[in-house]
């Protein structure tokens, strides 16, 4: 009986360790499929999948989604050791990983963008910033909707406003860009200080913080991504958006191929080319900002007042703007 017990315990342990070892073994095996890591929304991923499937790549790739911070952490920690062959991520993030590890290959096809971009990535969509409002809460509290980002500094909005902290997420950058390009750095400092006072406990670290709070009715007004508000509005929620007078600024998301030397999967580059050349039309139904020559925005879907920041959106610029934002808290 006791012998049996000892035996079974030992056996149990042995089996477990073997299983563990076996798992190690099979996890390491190489795969022919192109692995694509992405921080993009469901809609964007589905749209890219559709394009790949329609062009004969069905079953030849795997999409793996991550949150922006997790994917960012993985890229900066693993460099070229990352499992992915292709990464879709915020452009400035790709730049900063490239600066750290030179981990991406130059594109082998020509990218016909309206603005100029580095040679190792191709933008596939652009997110636009906008003011988000909860129409129910606005009405309940007798507030009028703001028309500009500057309006968010009005004391009447104190306690009703939620914004993103640029330390936590680059969604905040869209708001700060609009202020700096309109009022200069000094003007921005004054306005941003007031905005942070108004937001108080609702300065969010996550880019989706304001839309969550607006949707939950915790606040009446937020600053976030335009397409999130559109989606909520279409679902019939009391959520709407305001295109601010300063203009809607954009941040692009891009595709890049990881340089794995000898073992770089040759199909990876083909797939990126395929998404850029055949997938943009579909992507623009969700993210209607034109990025390539010959693309036309649907005037209903895209803000008439889309703007781009006068300087290139580099990591250094983000750092500078972050420091400015910190001085306003």
């Amino acid at each position, binding site marked *: 009986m*006791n012998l049996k017990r000892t035996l079974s315990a030992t056996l149990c342990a042995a089996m477990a360790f073997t299983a*563990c*070892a076996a798992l190690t073994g099979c*996890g390491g095996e190489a795969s022919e499929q192109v692995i694509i890591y992405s921080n993009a*929304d469901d809609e964007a991923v589905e749209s890219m999948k559709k394009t790949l499937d329609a062009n004969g790549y069905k079953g030849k790739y795997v999409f793996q989604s991550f949150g922006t911070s997790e994917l*960012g952490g993985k890229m900066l920690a693993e460099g070229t050791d990352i499992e992915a062959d292709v990464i879709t991520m915020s452009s400035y993030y790709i730049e900063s990983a490239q600066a750290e590890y030179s981990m991406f290959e130059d594109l082998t096809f020509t990218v016909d963008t309206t603005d100029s971009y580095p040679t190792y990535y191709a933008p596939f969509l652009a997110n636009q910033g906008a003011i988000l409002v909860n129409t129910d809460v606005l009405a309940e509290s007798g507030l009028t909707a703001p028309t500009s980002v500057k309006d968010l500094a009005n004391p009447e909005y104190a306690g009703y406003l939620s914004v993103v902290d640029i330390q936590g997420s680059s969604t905040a950058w869209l708001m700060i860009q609009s202020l700096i390009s309109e009022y200069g750095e000094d003007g921005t400092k004054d306005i941003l200080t007031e905005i942070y006072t108004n937001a108080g406990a609702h300065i969010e670290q996550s880019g989706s913080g304001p839309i969550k709070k607006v949707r*939950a009715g915790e606040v009446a007004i937020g600053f976030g991504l335009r397409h999130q508000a559109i989606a909520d509005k279409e679902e019939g929620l009391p959520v709407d958006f305001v295109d601010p007078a300063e203009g809607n600024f954009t941040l692009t998301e891009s595709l890049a191929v990881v340089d794995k030397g000898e073992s770089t999967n040759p199909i990876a580059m083909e797939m990126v080319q395929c998404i850029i050349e055949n997938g943009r039309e579909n992507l623009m139904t969700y993210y209607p900002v034109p990025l390539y020559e010959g693309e036309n925005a649907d005037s209903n879907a895209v803000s008439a007042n889309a703007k781009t920041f006068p300087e290139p959106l580099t990591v250094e610029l983000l750092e500078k703007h972050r420091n400015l934002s910190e001085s306003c808290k």
Partner: protein
Amino acid sequence: MSKKKISPQIVILLFSGLLFGFFLLLPMVTILAKSVYGSDGVTFEFYANLFAGGNIFQAFLNSVLISAASGIITTVLAFIPAYAVNYTNIHKRLKKIIAALVMLPMLLPTITYGFAIIYSLGKQGIITKILGRQIVDIYGTAGLIIGYVIYTLPISFMLINNTMGYIDKKFMIVSRIMGDSTLKTFVNTVITPLISTLAVSFIQSFTLSFTDYGIPAALAGNINLLSTRLYNEMLGSLPDFNTGSAVSILMLLPSVLSILLISCLNRYNIRYNKISVIELTKNRVRDWICGILSGIIILLVLSMFTVIFLVPFVEQYPYKMQLTVSHVTEIFTDHTLMNVYRNSLIVAFLTALLGSLLVYACALVSARRGEHRHYGKIPDTVSLITNTIPGMVLGVAYLLTFRGTFLQNTFAVLILCNIVHYFSSPYLMMKSSLEKLNASWETTARLMGDSWLKTVVRIITPNAIATLLEVFSYFFVNAMVTVSAVIFLASTKTMIITAKIKELQHFANFNEIFVLSILILSTNLAVKGLIRLFAAIRMKKGK
């Protein structure tokens, strides 16, 4: 007289030493190196940067004070239901229900806590609507404390309840016969044997709160905290692993204090020769008060989670309240999901099995009297350190350490990470229950010619089986709900269900998040049920 033979205790120590050397020390050294090693060699600029603003002191202070307050409140609150379960004549079945309900929140991923509180106590929250007004401002200290207490209460209860089970209650009778006052009896026979467990409970609750990021992300308001700072440095808009590593080293400071505190309190440990089953004195007033207080605590905690069961079954809470199952079907028609779910089960099961073995082995060495007992300080220290490493830091450290090795993107690395991450609570629980068992068993057995291993298998294990099963389910449940560390280590082939939740959270997709949370909850309940069944069958056989 004794032959030069390697004792099993030494084998255990060597094995666990190697394991923690590779999977705790090495990653932490990597982090330490990151914090002092920049592109131009060794430098203290990252620490200098960190301290330059002065903000960091405020953040440290805020984190310590709020976590300490939560630790105290949690321990006091957890004591009440534990007392009700162990020291009153409340009906047996009711006791079981109390214990099960207090532990229930542990079976849900913590990622849902912040949201659950906002949708319960926020401006549009269920509780706010029922009461007609907002009872507390949830953004700031109050919200954080509520969140932390809800988060750590089950663990605190688990620790206290476990130790209470091993206290010999006969001494209460002795104390009363000796003419002690009720208060004195309570202090001498209940509090004193519990002192070190209460301290452990405080420390566990403190460090869990101190290192948590999910709750502050939702509820911190404009309170500056160390964990938010850590997140922003490591994974914010401008990630900086160097400064982030410096913050994580700073976060280890409280563990140094807790190691000191625990070693101070260890001398209060009391061993009982046996645990007598006694008739507790009849005291209806006591039973009612304890029962009602426990009920209130449970009600308050669980009321926060009602939204989880409401939100996914209505169209769009709180605006469109029509019932629907479309969110549920949406999730279950996702064909990749079952794969991910299976992966989660594999990881959770192996984490539980291997984790329990490791915890048991380490606790046997450190808790049972013997020539190797002084080495027990090693697992003690390990347990306190693992406890203070935020999951995010552990995850990033593993990434940096094991990049390019055969472990990268395997199940093994996920399992090892989980075991190291969750080593602390089960180890402390196992140890404290082994310490309460009669210390002379080994000696007696040796005199009778049994080897240590034989004693462990024949005598100690059957007496510790209840705790061992608790430990198993603790590991399983936590491996099922954990997000923070493994999110970085999961790959396309080893993706687990909580990583999916994190992804959905990124898009603020709470309907799906709650459906998955309920799936995880039911899995955990099923596993707990199976373990109970197994224990019951064993008990019957034993008789």
